[in-house]
């Protein structure tokens, strides 16, 4: 006798629809976040302000991570 271990997935109905709705909302947030970054960038350029050390720490790795992730794809 051998014993089988098996796996499968049912995507559901309501939970899948709810995930899709939230995905649309989060997708909108993604653009808001990008726009905010763009506006901050423009203001920095206009006023010639250099980046704060805290901004450097917070933002550069995030950008690098994004780049690394898109390279993987």
């Amino acid at each position: 006798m051998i014993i089988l271990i098996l796996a499968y997935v049912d995507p559901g109905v309501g939970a899948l629809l709810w995930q899709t709705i939230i995905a649309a909302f989060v997708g909108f947030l993604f653009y808001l976040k990008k726009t905010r970054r763009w506006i901050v960038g423009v203001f920095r350029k206009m006023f010639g302000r250099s980046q704060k050390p805290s901004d450097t720490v917070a933002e550069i790795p995030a950008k690098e991570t994004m780049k690394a992730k898109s390279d993987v794809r």
Partner: protein
Amino acid sequence: MPQSAPSFRDPAGCCCFFNQRVLRFVTASAIPEFEDFLQTNCARQFIARKRIVSTRRLNENETAALRESPELQPVFDAQSIGAVFEHERIPFPSYPHEWPPEMLWAAGRLTLELAQAALADGFGLKDANPRNVLFRGSEPVFIDALSFERRNPGDPIWKPHAQFVRTFLLPLLASRRWGLPLAEIFMTRRDGLEPEDVYRLCGPLEKIKPRTLSLVSIPTWLSRRAGPDDQKIYQPHLLANTEKAQFILESLFKRLERTLDSLKPVAQKNSVWSDYMATHSYDDPAFAAKEKFVSEALREFKPARVLDAGANTGHFSALAAQTGAEVVAVDLDAACVGAIWSRAREKNLNILPLVVNLARPSPALGWRNGECPSFLDRATGLHRDGAASSAPAGAFDGVLMLALIHHLLVTERIPLEDILRLCYELSNWLLVMEFIDPKDEMFRRLTRGREHLHAALDMKMFEQACTPYFEIVRSLALPGTQRRMYCLKRKGDGN
């Protein structure tokens, strides 16, 4: 013979126990993806941390030898198997219907961690089921290495999300909010609780609480509005902006993580047995004598695998684990078992605690009863080599049965002879048993006016009943009690 076609759930392959080995049969088309995943940073790191089972591909000679086995022929015939992989063996398989909520929570945490880590390598989890996880001692290990698939980078939807909700979040919610035991959920439902099941349990106010709204109410309302034949729901919604798709998925995982954390089980203070250690009927010298007796037996016999039956808060399981044994601790009280798990994890003790009532042990479950073997099949060693034997040797070198026999004799009405026979089948060497005389206060409390049923039971009768199965190495009367400790050695052949 396989009990069912191996391809009926996962088309990429299947896994089976064979001759004490865990073999994964992978179809030819799924091999490149599987091997690519095993090379990813995620797989390497999690395997190194022992969070995914180690896996190796069998060479051609090894595979050819398996092909010759008539038992495995149907597996090879059912699909075009391209390669066979072997996984490390987890000492004692356990299933969600035997876990306390704490263990389900830990399995959920590992599943989410893996889903997030694999995302960075371009892979995704294709299912999110607690049966993908086993426990090595108290530590969760992901066993279904074939559960990973290469993701379409533009896909912002995680298909197993609903399964994660059904099999982790809703059972944890039901257990926390209504005290629903996981055994009741998972023994009757392979795929957990549907939002609609939980919706029926919720009162009007409960339905609009933020967590319930998101996990239960909105999915239920949306599901009612969706047409039963609407296939558009399942069409992939691919995005041209892959960065956006990644952002959406990362946000989903963070949200699921927060929800899972909000459902983290809290220690129950008022279960029937959880405060037993503080309220038991021994005074200090009796308890010290019992502890010394058990310690000496463990040190003398050094059992490598121990079953602590009726473990309660796990005091003696910890004692066994400290001597280097691999312990399986079973008790019917989920609160006690949860406490043992938390303690074992905190103190890094090799204890696997399970919610099992020895008088009603978990049955074999799943299709043709072949997916989850019964507790006794695992504990008596029947399932290890897959060969049924009339006199199994027991999966454990030592069994501790302390302060349990009166519950089996009185509450469950199991004959003494049968209890000893079961111990004989569970242990291949040592049995440490606490005999409780009918004159004992706890024994009398359980009999409730049925003392006559146990009038003949005494120490002599107990020792006589042991004779066919065990040799008495030594015994000790616990001072000031009607209890006696026995250290018993299994005889070669029981009747």
